[in-house]
């Protein structure tokens, strides 16, 4: 196993420089509760997977990032993927879908079911006190209706082993193929049953409407640019059922035969998102791993043990921010005294936003160059 050298980790200093036409880029953003991926496929073509909000601008961090690179989302983003509809992956997605007007929108077929759309419309009937993935989906539906009227690209449905996008070789950049490896049919069927159970019943309280808790309809994506490939694990988990989750992908003989050097670790590095066969079968060695934390309520991922597991697979592991909550800023002295007397614990709900950026020249034998911005850290720091 190669040891990581300091030269491989560069504290990001100049975020505003766009990648060259022949460079692949994977930018991962994570504020602690949220995830967004912005990927340059070459030749100025980009895609965005999921979305989280930049607290400073109030809009998706993906749009802010493209803006500082002087990249037009309207013309340069070829695909926007909603990997699943959990709140931490969807905030600001409606704005992204609206801004990326020429992009294909990619979702799972679960969302086109009458029950799922009913859930969204029920959630949109009145102002809910707090947002959830389904309320963001309600906004996305409205943008999709506008796009339909304007005859903009339609929605594509991701399933296991489906080619979502194919861009022919141009200007020396090899053919770009974009494939979904999940969800499996079995996962979609189970999800539809779960969605039906979430529809409110008459006389029940108007509580926050949620989405299915399971992650098994998450879209795992494989980007291939010539011989280069990137695996994006979304939040897919390992299940006991072989027709579902990672096992369905790993056992599928029909999936593309390739190994990726770069992996967006599934489900925030949790034990349930990790199957040793992912590392053995789907990734090269050496490999570069990136992930976001998940900090919400009693849950903080990855744990120290999760981080150790990942670091055993690759020393080139980076996290957008450590899953540690920051202390909130001091308030009025009287409020602080009340908090001290009343509250058992209080922290900022989200650590600071961080950004891991990996770049590599397409086809070159060089390693991926790593840049860490803001709160991003080598994952090894969590194991110390």
């Amino acid at each position: 196993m190669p040891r990581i050298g300091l030269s491989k980790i560069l504290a990001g200093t100049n975020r505003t420089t766009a990648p060259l036409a022949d460079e692949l880029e994977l930018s991962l953003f994570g504020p602690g509760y949220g995830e967004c991926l912005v990927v340059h496929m070459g030749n100025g073509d980009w895609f965005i997977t999921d979305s989280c909000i930049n607290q400073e601008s109030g809009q998706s961090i993906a749009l802010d990032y493209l803006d500082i690179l002087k990249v037009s989302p309207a013309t340069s983003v070829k695909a926007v993927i909603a990997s699943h509809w959990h709140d931490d992956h969807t905030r600001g997605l409606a704005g992204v879908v609206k801004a990326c007007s020429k992009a294909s929108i990619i979702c799972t077929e679960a969302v086109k079911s009458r029950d799922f759309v009913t859930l969204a419309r029920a959630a949109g009937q009145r102002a809910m006190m707090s947002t959830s993935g389904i309320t963001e989906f309600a906004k996305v539906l409205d943008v999709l209706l506008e796009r339909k009227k304007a005859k903009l690209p339609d929605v594509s449905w991701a399933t296991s082993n489906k080619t979502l996008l194919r861009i022919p070789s141009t200007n020396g950049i090899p053919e770009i193929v974009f494939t979904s490896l999940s969800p499996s049919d079995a996962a979609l069927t189970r999800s539809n049953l779960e969605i039906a159970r979430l529809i409110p019943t008459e006389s029940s309280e108007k509580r926050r409407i949620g989405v299915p808790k399971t992650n098994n309809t998450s879209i795992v994506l494989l980007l291939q640019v010539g011989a280069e490939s990137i695996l994006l694990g979304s939040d897919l988990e390992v299940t006991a059922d072989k027709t579902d989750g990672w096992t369905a992908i790993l056992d599928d003989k029909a999936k593309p035969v390739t190994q990726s050097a770069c992996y967006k670790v599934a489900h925030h590095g949790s034990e349930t998102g990790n199957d040793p066969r992912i590392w053995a079968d789907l990734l090269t060695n050496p490999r570069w791993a990136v992930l976001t934390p998940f900090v919400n309520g009693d849950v903080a991922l990855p744990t120290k043990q999760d981080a150790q597991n990942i670091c055993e697979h690759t020393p080139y592991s980076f996290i957008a921010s450590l899953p540690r909550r920051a202390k909130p800023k001091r308030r009025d002295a009287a409020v602080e005294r009340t908090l001290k007397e009343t509250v058992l614990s209080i922290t900022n709900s989200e650590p600071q936003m961080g950004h891991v950026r990996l770049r590599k020249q397409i086809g070159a034998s060089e390693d991926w160059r790593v840049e860490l911005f803001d709160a991003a850290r080598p994952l090894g720091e969590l194991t110390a």
Partner: protein
Amino acid sequence: MTAFAKDLEPSQESRDLVPTASGSLEHPQLGDVPLGSVRAFDRGDVPNAAIQDANRSATEPILAAPELDLDTVASLQWAPSPRVLPLPPVRFTTRSRFLPLQKWEGTVLSVRAESFVARLVDKTSDAVDAEAELPLSDVTVDDLALVQPGAVFYWTVGYSMDLSGSRRRVAEMRFRRLPVWTKRDLEQARSAADRTIEDLGWNE
């Protein structure tokens, strides 16, 4: 001074009344005028004193005048001559005032044996959301049944000021009572969904 306070033009008779620390109004000619629950003031004339918080200096802006109503204003403007008992019908209420310092809107994330974890959205400033573990013992008995994941509550910390001018630091937590889904709500959601699916061509 608020527009309401500025419009207040007390009669000479009213201005002559001087509140005393004993809880009465003293007129230069008529002496003490006991007024029962009148709040003690140390400064200013009656109308001004009545619309000012006793804890504020005379130069501080007046934020509200909850103790005076329109009848009071009219009475002060048309007060009788000093020969008649000059009792302005100033209504000094016994209500205490609340000065909020911090407001949060909370959503319950999880409930434990003796506490609950909530995400707090700061409604006073644009601070980032906080997450807090709060004791269930701070929830009123009436609200306890409402403490469930997804429940929304409002939490306010501030000063409660009583009539004597003393203030207490208090925290108030109120859980939101949620309306229920009606048959009509659900039918509307279904038909809106059907229209959306039709318009998007997802039923083809």
